[in-house]
């Protein structure tokens, strides 16, 4: 599926000398840099929707730079919304995805790549948690899905993350979007009284704090609100630590160029390939180096599934080494098992880094993890018997296997019962100012602008809570260390005792949550 782009040049500079997207950035108008980033993402077909009075200037600037993007003029906000609706309808007809983005947006190519090249994202919105220059509208999420979006006329309270003025929709989403835009256009030509009140409230806040400048009018935020209110499924695509800004004058444009250059884009993209929520050992002792292996694998053109299979082979080799039962055999097995685990992390990181995802790959990864682990159990028990243990070791091995299987099912059964409870939110009509978030408690993992303060507060308790559940990284370390130093009996006993504690701990917590 191809993606086309629609750039919005509707925002005026603070000194009223023209559109923000023609501000000089790295010695050329910002919009040219953005178009070049889009070309790097194979989005060659771009259209610019501009306020009529700037149409000629923009067309000249683009043609001077050899850009073929068409510039369409619109007289006012209602016309801009109609123009958006036309573009969305065209996308639905041609079966393309459409990226809609503010033409003055200064960010990295990688941020846009995350939005348009990730096969898991059909329709999505760029979002960010840091305090950013020019982000004025907030979003509310539910498990990564956007359930509420702020606009000049719509309120989100309390917000959770920032709306970063870039939206991608698939053909089905575009159909919903065009309908929403037409509705917004007709509403805006004679705005309902609550809209005017909300808009006045925001203008007032703006006067008191002019730093949050753009956003007195914003067709893109309105479109997104319309999509959400019409039930479209929009995913939040986080900016992470990449740069983002919407400069409004020469000074802020120069600052944006300098600040963007400060960010090591490739490093951030590589860091972004690491699973966001993972165990302690994996996070601090494996991912920091395994991501470099993932990058090397990407350069060698390896696929995630090849890495998954390689990891299984290493796990099988570890099991074979453990099966000797001797001290050297157990030490070799321990090392091979750690190698297998490293590559188990690499496959997922490679998939995220290269955006090469498949449902089969995810299944294979999960299934091979268990296969590795149980092969190792069998190898350990076999080796112990070879070196003098009796059948009791097989009882321990079977017990460890059973404990792992039961714990796993406890996790997934509980998760399944929770998913069943997720209620469909009744979205209010577009006329209503308040969305579903108004009155909701603040988000649990609040991504408010004060991100760093939040992080400090939640970090210290998070790790012990995770370690106690014996995640795979910790488990494999326990197996390697106990097997190499003491032998299989201690390995299985540790797994059984720790597994039982983990099961009791998480089940007790879940029972209390389920009953209250």
């Amino acid at each position: 599926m191809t993606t086309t782009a629609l750039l919005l040049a509707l925002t005026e500079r603070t000194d009223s000398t023209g559109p923000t997207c023609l501000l000089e950035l790295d010695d050329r108008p910002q919009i040219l840099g953005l178009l070049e980033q889009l070309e790097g993402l194979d989005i060659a077909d771009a259209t610019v929707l501009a306020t009529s009075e700037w149409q000629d200037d923009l067309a000249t600037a683009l043609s001077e730079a050899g850009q073929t993007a068409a510039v369409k003029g619109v007289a006012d906000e209602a016309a801009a919304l109609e123009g958006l609706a036309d573009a969305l309808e065209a996308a639905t007809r041609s079966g393309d995805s459409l990226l809609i983005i503010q033409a003055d947006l200064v960010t990295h190519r990688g941020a846009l790549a995350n939005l348009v090249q990730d096969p898991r994202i059909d329709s999505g919105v760029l979002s960010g948690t840091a305090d950013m220059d020019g982000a004025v509208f907030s979003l509310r999420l539910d498990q990564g899905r956007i359930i509420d979006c702020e606009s000049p006329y719509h309120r989100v309270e309390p917000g959770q993350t920032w709306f970063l003025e870039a939206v991608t929709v698939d053909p089905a989403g575009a159909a919903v979007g065009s309908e929403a835009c037409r509705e917004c256009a007709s509403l805006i030509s004679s705005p309902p009284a609550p809209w005017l009140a909300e808009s006045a409230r925001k203008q007032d806040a703006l006067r008191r704090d002019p730093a949050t400048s753009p956003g007195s009018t914003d067709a893109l935020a309105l479109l997104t609100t319309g999509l959400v209110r019409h039930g479209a499924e929009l995913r939040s695509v986080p900016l992470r630590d990449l740069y983002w800004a919407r400069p409004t004058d020469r000074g802020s444009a120069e600052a944006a160029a300098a600040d963007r250059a400060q960010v090591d884009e490739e490093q951030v993209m590589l860091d972004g390939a690491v699973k966001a929520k993972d165990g302690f050992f994996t996070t601090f002792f494996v991912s920091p180096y395994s991501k470099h292996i993932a990058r090397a694998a990407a350069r060698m053109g390896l696929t995630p599934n090849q890495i998954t299979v390689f990891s299984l082979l290493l796990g099988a080799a570890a099991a074979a080494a453990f099966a000797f039962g001797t001290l050297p055999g157990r030490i070799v097995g321990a090392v091979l098992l750690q190698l297998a685990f490293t590559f188990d992390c690499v496959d997922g990181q490679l998939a995220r880094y290269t955006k090469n995802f498949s449902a089969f790959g995810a299944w294979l990864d999960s299934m091979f993890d268990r296969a590795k682990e149980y092969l190792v159990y069998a190898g350990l028990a076999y080796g112990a018997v070879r070196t003098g243990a009796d059948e009791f070791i097989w009882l321990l091995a079977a017990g460890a296997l059973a404990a792992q299987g039961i714990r796993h099912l406890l996790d997934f059964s509980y998760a399944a019962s929770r998913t069943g409870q997720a209620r469909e939110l009744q979205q209010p009509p577009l006329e209503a100012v308040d969305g579903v978030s108004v009155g909701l408690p603040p988000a649990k993992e609040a991504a408010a602008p004060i991100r760093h303060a939040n992080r400090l507060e939640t970090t210290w308790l998070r790790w012990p809570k995770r370690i106690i559940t014996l995640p795979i990284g910790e488990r494999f370390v326990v197996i390697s260390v106990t097997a190499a130093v003491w032998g299989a009996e201690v390995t299985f006993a540790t797994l059984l005792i720790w597994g039982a504690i983990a099961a009791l701990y998480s089940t007790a917590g879940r029972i209390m949550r389920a009953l209250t």
Partner: protein
Amino acid sequence: MTNALRSYRDDLPPIDHASGSASLGPGALVVGGVAPGVAALVATQEAGIWVGLTLGWFILVGSLIGSRSPLGWLVPPIIRAAEYGFVIGLTWWVDPAAMPAAFALLAAISYHEYDLVYRQRHQAGAPPRWLLVALGGWQLRMALVFVLAAADLLTPGLWTMAGWVGVVAVGESVHSWLSLKPDPRTSMESDDDVLD
């Protein structure tokens, strides 16, 4: 009861239609399904008969019990724990030399049960019903293990069961992926919310 929870039980079709007909909680499964038999076992020392009766009673209660109560998500793991515990305990008690075979059977069943979870997640669907029939569900597998123990055939019997479950489960899951048309709605992230 969600479809996922129903599938995780791994019932033998068509018994799976019965689940939920008794609106009892997981506590009833533990107390009502196991305790009377264990008490009788301790009181009378007539092991073989009481294990058989307890098993039959547990299969009946476990098949009927649903997951509607707030703690209904505990039912599939309890059933699983009963199955694994039964295979391990009975083998250890009757013929400890058959433990490697019991391990192999549990590994094969585990493969199938992980597959139930991950297929649901990544392929947006449960495995075909013929597979569930072929693998016997937890009901038939537990009954079969009891019969093998009673007939003193644990070692050959458990190895045969392990081979059958392993070959059928692995073969069917590989075949299902080879013949799958990509569906964009399925999850492409490996266990993201579970740290495992």
